[in-house]
């Protein structure tokens, strides 16, 4: 409870205010991206690849069109990618000697307040992206409006589950190239092999085990089963449990790394 109470204390909202103030400059562009992104996927994967896949009528899709199958996965994987990008580069920069975290740390803000304020910003950004993405998808009839709010909630949980550990790590990073390496060798493989574009049941059994272990698969599978109405209580519990552990560990470590970095 201590952590939660601190998360919503006034100082954290001041840090959120800082990021929202900056966001005023870029919000229009970001909304265009949030709407354009699903449109691109709907076109390329619905009219293009989807037509090809649906012709085969794969049993792995359990009777869903490829587009209906893939959209929740793309939303969740996209949210993860955005969460990583927003919680890595900007955090590293902010923690540098001329960064905004340093300015905030010289005011009454504590490192934990800085962390929670920035986290709230990532939550708002993920919510915005997920809402716009699902709205566009609903418009094209690929997401059931009744299940759309649940899909948004899953997306936000996934965003926090990735943003918290990413920030915990990024605050200790000193070279931008380290973030590129992490993106290329961890985030992109996750994006490709966590069941985003295809059911992992198609993979050889050994690779399926790897996929089950990856955090993104839990997010993708949770989002997809919720969106398609095929969720089982047992599956939902495991997925939410896995992602929640990431949140808790991520925040625990981030509180320590933030303090260590900002209070040298």
């Amino acid at each position: 409870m201590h952590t939660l109470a601190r998360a919503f204390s006034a100082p954290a909202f001041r840090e959120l205010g800082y990021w929202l103030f900056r966001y005023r400059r870029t919000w229009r562009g970001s909304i265009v991206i949030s709407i354009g992104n699903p449109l691109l996927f709907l076109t390329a994967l619905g009219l293009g690849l989807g037509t090809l896949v649906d012709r085969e009528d794969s049993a792995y899709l359990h009777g869903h069109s490829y587009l209906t199958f893939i959209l929740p996965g793309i939303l969740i994987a996209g949210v993860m990618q955005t969460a990583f990008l927003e919680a890595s580069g900007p955090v590293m920069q902010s923690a540098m000697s001329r960064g905004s975290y340093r300015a905030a740390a010289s005011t009454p803000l504590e490192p934990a307040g800085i962390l929670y304020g920035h986290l709230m910003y990532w939550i708002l950004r993920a919510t915005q992206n997920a809402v716009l993405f699902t709205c566009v998808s609903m418009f094209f009839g690929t997401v059931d409006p009744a299940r759309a709010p649940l899909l948004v909630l899953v997306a936000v949980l996934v965003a926090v589950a990735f943003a918290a550990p990413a920030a915990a790590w990024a605050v200790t990073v000193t070279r931008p190239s380290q973030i590129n390496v992490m993106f290329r060798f961890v985030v992109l493989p996750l994006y490709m092999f966590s069941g985003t574009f295809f059911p992992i049941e198609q993979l050889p059994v050994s690779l399926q085990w790897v996929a089950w272990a990856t955090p993104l698969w839990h997010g993708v599978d949770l989002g997809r089963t919720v969106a398609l109405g095929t969720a089982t209580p047992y599956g939902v519990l495991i997925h939410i449990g896995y992602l929640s552990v990431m949140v808790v560990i991520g925040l625990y470590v981030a509180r320590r790394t933030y303090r260590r970095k900002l209070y040298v």
Partner: protein
Amino acid sequence: MTDSSTVLIDAQGLRKVYGRPGDKAGFTAVDGIDFQVRRGEAFGVLGANGAGKSSTMRMIACVSPPTAGSLRILGYDSGADGAKIRARLGVVPQDDTIDTELTVRENLLIYGRYFGLSWKVLRERSTRLLEFTRLSEKADDAVATLSGGMRRRLTIARALINEPEIVLLDEPTTGLDPQARHLLWERLFQLKQDGVTLLLTTHYMDEAEQICDRLVVMDAGKIVAEGAPAELIARYTLREVLELRFAPGERQIMTDKCRGLAERMEELPDRLLLSTDNGEETLSAVHRQGVQPLTALVRRSSLEDVFLTLTGRSLLD
């Protein structure tokens, strides 16, 4: 000597060791220093690079926990009440943390929000502070268009947004041209007149002499002297200094000839300094010895000479 209402900063046995606790290879940046800063005074920490000035400043700014010793600021313990202390401090760091994506005024507004001030108060204060730091015309410009001196003034304006009781300035004029420095000193002097307590680090003698009522000289993490600039000069130096420069080939011979002509002699890489009570007399003595310097200059002793006497090194090494 002083009561707690007038002593704003009280450091006793203050130490800062970088590296993990118990780590033998830890680096001691501040090695047990004691000092007090009183309300309304301009207090300087003078020292060469690496003397421990910035580490001391960061501890006082409550963003660096002391390894040992006690540090009380505004009556609070720096470790337990950091947030309360920071609410009443203004910080001008060595590396300025101005946000280059915001305008000049926005930088003041958004920084002020960190102190929980209302937009109304901030709009009024930002206008006043931009005027004070002579940046009104730049209010709506991007930070990128500011010169080095303007950026530093913006950092000072920002540090004043919460109307702090103590302003910490870490090498405020390093890297600025002479004109920008003089404007900055003039503004700092005004702040001092307004009753704000200033604590600044510097490795410029003229800066310390101009602004500081009292200062400590730091060397290798320790305080080696404390007092008002004039007191320190009187205590550690003779009245005048004769500075001699020689042609490169003759240096050693000429230096040897000068030995014994002054009470104290310091050899610097580029010149020879002779401390004396009467520079002109010493210069005559030098000439009588057949020493022919390229240039000879008699000047009043300064803090630079205090530092040289105390540490055997020049400040700007």
